[in-house]
């Protein structure tokens, strides 16, 4: 059983914990389509989302997941809160703690912010993305989707393409997929993928066609224009010419390869539109699975807390 206060990343999660979350998510998924199955698993626990960075999918997905399980869900509008008056992260957390918040779900632009919050508050902290570190729930929903379609991970060839160096999604997926036996290749222009990532147990390459050969999963990442100061490539036209995936590029991968993307997509940059909307794409399925995975995490952390008499 998941025995932890917080979910900060896949780096710290054991293999069994990952499997438990994925198994639980399978149960939870039924509640998405069938409101009659929604219940009070979380016993009216308070759930606060704190997003220091913008988000469509993750925040809404967490809020719905909490609601489907009978939590009381509120969003702390960070822009309109005392954060804008300079209140520190720790002080913000301590205040929410005192109001009886059971879960703090945070996205933050700085690596390690979730860890800092977690060690200062009693509430369970769920990392919804911290800097260039981790985005564990995204990786878990990706893994859920992969397992759902392909049956498992052992020996699977997963290629993650694009802006690797800024991507917490790539990192969380690498940690998780490697633990479960997949062969992970990170591919992108040499200025966006660092050789030091090899230490995570993955392949690193700038040879896009070589990376795609016989791939079971092709995961694209958004080029994070907002994080670039010194542009690591000349322009988006050149990027999409060299690294964008269109149907002829996709032919290098296995015929039924899954096409995945955490969103939001820059259409025509990392993936051509016909790929995004094509038969191999599970991009929208990922979003649905995200709600299930987040329900599972809330449920498991809630039960872990209840059993340890917080």
């Amino acid at each position, binding site marked *: 059983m998941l025995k932890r206060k917080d979910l900060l990343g896949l780096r710290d999660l054991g293999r069994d914990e990952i499997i438990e979350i994925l198994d639980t998510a399978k149960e939870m998924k039924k509640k998405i389509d069938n409101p009659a199955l929604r219940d009070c698993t979380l016993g009216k626990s308070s759930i606060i989302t704190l997003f220091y960075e913008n988000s469509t999918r993750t925040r809404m997905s967490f809020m719905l997941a909490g609601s489907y399980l009978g939590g009381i869900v509120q969003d702390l509008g960070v822009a309109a809160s005392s954060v804008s008056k300079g209140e520190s992260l720790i002080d913000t957390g301590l205040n929410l703690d005192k109001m009886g918040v059971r879960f703090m779900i945070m996205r933050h632009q700085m690596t390690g912010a979730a860890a*800092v919050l977690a060690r200062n508050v009693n509430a369970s902290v769920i990392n919804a993305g911290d800097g260039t570190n981790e985005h564990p729930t995204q990786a878990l929903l990706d893994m859920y989707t992969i397992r759902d379609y392909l049956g498992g991970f052992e020996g699977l060839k997963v290629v993650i393409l694009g802006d690797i160096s800024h991507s917490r999604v790539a990192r969380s997926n690498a940690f998780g997929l490697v633990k479960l036996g997949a062969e992970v290749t990170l591919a992108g222009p040499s200025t966006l993928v660092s050789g030091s990532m090899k230490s995570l147990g993955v392949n690193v390459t700038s040879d896009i066609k070589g990376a795609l050969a016989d791939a079971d999963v092709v995961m694209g990442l958004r080029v994070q224009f907002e994080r670039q100061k010194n542009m690591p490539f000349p322009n988006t036209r050149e990027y999409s010419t060299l690294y964008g995936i269109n149907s002829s590029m996709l032919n290098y991968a296995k015929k039924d390869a899954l096409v995945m993307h955490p969103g939001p997509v820059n259409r025509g940059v990392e993936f051509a539109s016909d790929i995004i909307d094509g038969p191999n794409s599970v991009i929208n399925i990922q979003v649905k699975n995200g709600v299930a995975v987040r329900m599972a995490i809330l449920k498991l952390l809630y039960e872990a807390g209840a059993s340890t008499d917080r």
Partner: protein
Amino acid sequence: MSLLIKGGRVIDPANGIDEIMDIFADGGKIAEVGRDIEKAADRTINAEGKWVMPGLIDLHVHFREPGYERKETIRTGSRAAAMGGFTTVCCMPNTNPVTDNDIVVEFIKLKAERAGIVNVLPIGSLTKGMEGEVLSDIGRMASAGVCALSEDGKSVLNAALMKNAMRYASMFDLPVFDHCEDPSLTGKGQMNAGAQAAYMGLAGISNDSEEVIVARDMILAESTKTPIHLCHISTKGSVTLIRQAKERGVRVTAEATPHHFTLCDEDIRDYDANYKMAPPLRSREDREAIRLALKDGTIGVISTDHAPHHVDEKNCEFQKALNGIIGLETSFCLAHTELVLGGYLTPSQLVEKMSTNPGRILHNGKGTLSAGADADITIADPNEQYTIDVDDMVSKAKNTPFGGREVKGRILYTIVGGEIVVDGGKLIKK
């Protein structure tokens, strides 16, 4: 007041001394160093089994006054220095206002006189406001008594301006202490680039960010025929560059900090910002290069870069946390444990790095136990083993990663101008 130190192992590299001797000091000066001195003294210290060294000198500290007194003051900083065996410290100019004119220099000297218990020497900035645009009032600061010039935490990025600053400083015989870092290469980096940064998801700072300025400023020292002192060298590549420059006769000296020869990036844990500093803790390989450079003399000085910060400035997001750690109270014990007991330095070489060589760079007559010199003396027990306890520290700040570490070597006496300020390991002046 007269003072007799009996039977200690006197280590004074400036005079080639490393043997059991006595020291007699009177009127604030060293009067005699020799065997079996029999003289009546106001105070006699039995130093048997102890090291008796010229007072330790730290070329690189931040006492935060004026401007950031909640982090440290000259009062608290000088007490931390005394507890660490330092009799002379040089204060970096990143105060508020910046130490870029004679008025601030006079203020620091006044505070040092009133509240300091060791020699506190101000360093002036190279450029006005440390903004890298126009020279500070270097001549007026020289008259007011700065011991050196430095842009502290940054490099003067305009090479022509740096060249002018070096030439102008040489006119006043002022050493230039050079922080080497190209900020465009540091970028948003938070720790050393490499496997550990990849593991932790923090943006990396590559070694070249230091090395390009090390190379540039040694070239400028060569072309202007002026000396340059390179602060807190952290990379293997910098060591190689310095070694090559010394071979061709460039007047370069360099320092390393205790944290860079003790720790490496693999030690960084739990996003604990007490491991965050500039330059960052480098790789294991870099650390070994620094130790070897200390051993072969390529790096001749150990400085602490004592950088006090308030707890709120460290107990926060790693990226938001300020750079630097305190170091005065742990410098000697770490240097002794890591470098002497670690087999890199002889005791005499250690004293050279912590007193003799910094004294030579300041060329103010410090760093020696010669007769006639100021009676700045440090006595340490090399055999005392203990665990570093942050709560025991007298610095106002507690930002150090060394709490809980086992070390060997404790400062017992710090004597400044013949006056005992640390006596038997205890601070005399509160």
